[in-house]
């Protein structure tokens, strides 16, 4: 059973999606470590190290995602998590923006998978299976 860390980054309290992600991933055979809302980069990294997680799934809904996710990849590398898969989804920027551009920016920041608003976790399962198995 593969372990994944999920949570909502920054000063963000959107909890609904997070609870559903927890439920859906668990149901689909993952060991889900849910650090919940209002989580810092450190929270994610510590949880991943402690549980030997294969992927970190960051949610950001409230608009400050771009700020909150800066240097996340570098922090992971420093913590010895250079192989861990980094996913981000939700409403990760402020306002309605062209997603092609947004994806580029986040990929450049080191994220492996970047999801636009409205992509349900069910749809991302295929990617997760491809990237880390079950």
């Amino acid at each position: 059973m593969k372990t994944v860390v999920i949570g909502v980054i920054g000063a963000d309290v959107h909890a609904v999606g997070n609870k559903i992600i927890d439920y859906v991933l668990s149901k689909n055979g993952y060991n889900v470590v849910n650090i919940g809302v209002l989580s810092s980069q450190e929270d994610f990294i510590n949880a991943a190290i402690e549980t030997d997680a294969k992927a970190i799934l960051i949610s950001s809904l409230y608009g400050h995602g771009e700020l909150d996710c800066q240097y996340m990849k570098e922090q992971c590398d420093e913590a010895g998590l250079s192989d861990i898969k980094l996913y981000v989804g939700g409403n990760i920027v402020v306002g309605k923006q062209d997603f092609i551009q947004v994806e580029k920016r986040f990929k450049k920041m080191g994220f492996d998978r970047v999801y636009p608003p409205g992509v349900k976790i069910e749809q991302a399962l295929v990617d997760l299976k491809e990237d880390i198995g079950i």
Partner: protein
Amino acid sequence: MVKNEKMPLQDFLKIREEILQGWPTGEHPALKLEESVKRLKSVPPHKNFALKLRKAKEEGITLVQPRAGVARLDEHIELLQYLEKVGQADFLPSTIDSYTRHNRYENAEDGIKESEKQGRSLLNGFPAVNHGVDGCTKVYENVNVPLQARHGTPDARLLSEIIHASMWTSNEGGGISYNIPYAKIISLEDTIRYWQYVDRLVGYYYEQGIELNREPYGPLTGTLVPPCISNTVAIIESILAAEQGVKNITVGYGQGGNLVQDIAALRALEEQTNHYLKLFGYEDVFITTVFHQWMGGFPSNESEAIGLIGYASTVAALGKATKMITKTTHESQGIPTKEANAKGLRTSKMVVNLLKDQKAPDSSELQEEIDQIKKEVDSLIHAIVKIGKGDIATGVVKAFKAGIIDIPFAPSELNNGKILPARDIDGKIRILEFGCLGFSDELKDFHREKLVQRAKIQKRELSIQMTIDDIYAISEGCLVGFTKD
């Protein structure tokens, strides 16, 4: 333990001194109470939130208000002016950014600077504390309708001081509604005290002859919240506010989706708020209602989103809400442009205007739903008062701990988090898992029966999957969710 008792003026003034030192903008001549009283007395009736609400209530019409806020002062003013002129907003908000909500004024300061540099807002709202009385007064001076701060701030004491001194005549929030859905581990006792302070400030102004409006935040998590739960919170926050001397309160409710249940909830909310205020000895509080257009996940297709907005507006008007908070076609994507925001307003306003001469006819289905909600609220409030040994503030703190009151999907660890809502076959929100909710067996049976009926008709099991399907349902264009397979 926190008590529902009016804060003595001395205590209030003492805390006030500290509060104003929380950030440099707390030091401002307008924040001397004599000065702020003078300023507030200069507000003309058409810019006073409380008075405009009284007038609307008398006329039986529904007024509209958007959400809106950006980092930079000038851009914020431009935005509000646009919403007033093009959007024809009856009330204007200033939605506060998330850093300010967490009292992280330094982050907010960085956000403003970075926004100035990049020439666009990097914050998700207006950092009112950082802009201070001067900035907020400039906002006030540049619009022609009443202003309100809308946020989600557990400790909004400094913010409230600044906005009222800037002649903003309404403030949204409450010790419960701006904690449980908006925080993770902040003590409920603390936030109730913080909001007693905010209410005491409004009470103080009332003593000086100034009527300000307060609005407990109704929709909570905005996601399948059973009416009895949000109504109970609204009533309790009204009582807490009234004790501090607040006289003009707007209780809120977020659209659930079923027309009859939503209208019933609005009616029950208004009637029971008045009822309980009187019961607890608060005689002269003026109550209005606000209906929030669908607060859960929105459809991403813009035509579908505007359909939902049109439907919501119909419900608000038929339910005779005094105010409606509008959404936009950008909702599922991100903070709306001013154009999208104004369009949402105009669509909403068209509908409430068209329907201003109409209301939902009385019917037994409506009456039964009103009675049901009232019974449930009575049951919850009874349990809260009981566990608080007569004190509603103590009671609510203990009730959350015991799970007697439980808000679905709330992020707060203070919340029991065991309740699971789901829709019945008509789309009315019922409860699937009760946790320790303060419900009698009779009430529970009613809910269970309704959900068993749905399960039968939909040929499925009673399970959390129902709840999940229902969470997705509206954004996918239906009300009662179902699993496709």
